[in-house]
């Protein structure tokens, strides 16, 4: 009973007479007033610091934009992934012109293949204009999978016209639209894999490192086992073993999940190594003596001290997952056209012909770079703002 008693309140203390040794009221590094800072929980402190991390904020904004665009792909993409114009195959990017009288416009082109050089030739009809505008009607799509709509953020005002902002692919489809639609898969499925790996890595590495002894030995052998299974045959084996009625998306999702079931090992090992070092620290003991349950000791008390490593690993795993799709397609597995993803688009760019004659088809790579850089900036920002010793940017 007594153990539940709250401590009696202290006698009021005279206020600090000089005010030295404490903070000035306004001059705080997070740009918040002191009282706000001092009563803020840790996550808020981290968030405030994060807000001041310039690159991280840039990364964050990019990410948010990417996800918004992915979510409303139909709206942001000027066309559907299936709409094409045969004569515009390999049409180079058309940069919109602007004039005050006409607004945004491009000149329509007609394409034909030169039988001598085999090169697609596009003749621009400068007497005509394809007017471009915001919120124009065009290909129908289903917003968020439920709402039927046909308004597009930006595109030709006449739904019948074509405009290739980033050029056309070999089937005369709009590359920009495909990149936008492709982000839906590329920015989602990979993350599932990362999340699973992370979870497994943390839990199993945590258990292994914290308990040590026999548990550790067994888990280490298991890790070794998983680690020794080369991914390549696994990919090939799995790809072939999936039920035939599965679509490429499902197959790809499953491969990702299984890969992540195998891919947690290296994180687990690092975590384990660090835990082995950390578990002797007094503060871990202190937590134990506080009656903190083991799981919480591992995850709330010990893991944060390698959050740097974890964050770095995760923000590195994300691009790996986005790209693994590409590699899988290279190996003839994973997603394949007509599915649209960045990996598939890049896979299409993977030929000398494209590099030499239609280099804009490499642009999905720029999207990948953008996403990767953004993820990693955010990761860095998180790391820096969670670091109690950290320098301020």
């Amino acid at each position, binding site marked *: 009973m007594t153990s539940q008693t709250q401590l009696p309140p202290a006698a009021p203390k005279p206020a600090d007479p000089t005010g030295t040794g404490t903070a000035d009221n306004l001059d705080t590094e997070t740009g918040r007033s002191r009282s706000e800072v001092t009563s803020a929980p840790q996550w808020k402190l981290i968030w405030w610091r994060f807000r001041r991390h310039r690159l991280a904020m840039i990364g964050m904004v990019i990410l948010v934009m990417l996800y918004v665009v992915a979510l409303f792909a139909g709206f942001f993409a000027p066309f559907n992934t299936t709409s094409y114009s045969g004569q515009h195959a390999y049409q180079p990017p058309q940069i919109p012109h602007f004039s005050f009288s006409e607004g945004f416009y491009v000149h329509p082109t007609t394409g034909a293949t030169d039988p001598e050089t085999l090169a697609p030739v596009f003749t621009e009809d400068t007497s005509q204009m394809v007017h471009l505008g915001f919120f124009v009607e065009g290909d129908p799509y289903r917003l968020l999978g439920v709402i039927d709509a046909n308004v597009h953020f930006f595109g030709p005002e006449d739904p019948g016209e074509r405009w290739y902002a980033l050029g056309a692919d070999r089937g005369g489809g709009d590359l920009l639209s495909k990149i936008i639609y492709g982000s839906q898969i590329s920015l989602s499925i990979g993350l599932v894999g990362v999340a699973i790996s992370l979870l497994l890595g943390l839990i199993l590495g945590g258990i292994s490192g914290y308990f040590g002894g026999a548990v550790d030995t067994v888990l280490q052998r298991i890790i070794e086992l998983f680690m020794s299974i080369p991914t390549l045959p696994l990919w090939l*084996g799995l790809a072939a073993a999936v039920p035939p009625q599965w679509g490429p998306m499902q197959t790809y999702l499953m491969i990702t999940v299984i890969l992540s079931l195998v891919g947690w090992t290296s994180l687990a090992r690092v975590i384990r190594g660090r835990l*082995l070092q950390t578990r002797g620290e007094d503060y871990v003991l202190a937590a134990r003596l506080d009656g903190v349950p083991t799981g919480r000791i591992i995850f709330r008390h010990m893991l944060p001290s390698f959050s740097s490593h974890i964050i770095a690993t995760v923000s590195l795993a994300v691009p790996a997952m986005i790209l693994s799709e590409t590699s899988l397609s290279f190996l003839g597995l994973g997603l394949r056209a007509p599915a649209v993803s960045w990996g598939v688009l890049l896979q299409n760019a993977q030929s000398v012909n494209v590099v030499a004659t239609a280099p804009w088809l490499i642009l999905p790579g720029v999207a990948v770079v953008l996403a990767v850089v953004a993820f990693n900036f955010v990761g860095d920002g998180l*790391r820096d703002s969670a670091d109690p*010793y950290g320098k301020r940017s």
Partner: protein
Amino acid sequence: MLRFTIHRILHVIPTLIIISVISFFIIQLPPGDFLTTQVAALEAQGESIDPAQLDALRVRYGIDDPFWIQYWKWISNILLHGDFGLSFQFQRPVIDLITERLPLTILLGVATLLFTWAIALPAGIYSAIKQHSAADYTISVVGFIALAVPNFLAALVLAYIGFAYFGQSVGGLFSPEYVNAPWSLAKVGDLLEHLWIPVLVIGLAGTAGIIRTMRANMLDELYKPYVTTARAKGLPEGRNIRKYPLRIALNPFISTVGWSIPSIFDGEVIVATVLALGTTGPLLLAALKSQDMFLAGGIILIIAVLTVVGTLISDLLLAAVDPRVRFGKA
């Protein structure tokens, strides 16, 4: 330490047995077998094989035997006679095929590894020390880009640039005139000329990861009190960092460094394939795709053994550099 080592080595044996079973199993996962792929390949050329002939061949190769019998034949031959079997595809002993490719594989693997580490570790450390400086940002961004560009695309673009602007012959690790020539200074030079693209492509892609983790781990250690202590002794900053925080920040690398050994062996299959490098990676890929069971199995087994050995090395290294692990209750 010796006991620890022996103990660890003993643990390796059951692991290896399980791994060999699993590898052998995975190889057989895809539908069909080597002969089916042969048929598919021939068909692509316009040839066909009589199904009756296939059945006869299956019996001959023992492809139709139950899994355990096939496994036992395979593994016992390896263990008792060091015989890895015959590659269906090449109709040559697996071991010959592997050893043929070994020197170049190791050369490429080690060269990339060294390149990666030589660039990434200092860059990671530097960007931790100069956190939030222009150099830090530059290193980060360059690293990310190298990371984000798919390797094979980078290889292709570099190869194309080599072709379009320098008229360089692409593919393989040697120019045609040197491939079968005996070793000479000129051949070494030629090798170096060809080595840079794969080393650059594979190496750079790997750097970002190491830079990021190194930077993060360094930042964790850099402001610990013991670093200040060392500084107060008058230790030069560089030596201080090398001796104290770096030593601890390297731990995560050390605990995974062993795994670069197998990755030397099968790393970057795709780039090696695109650039037609005569390394084991593409051999494995080809073997897997054509379901060349023993060849794939042999390579995978070697990789598995190397992984296990690598883990062992990592464990021992970690114990060697970190007394807390060594004296820990583990």
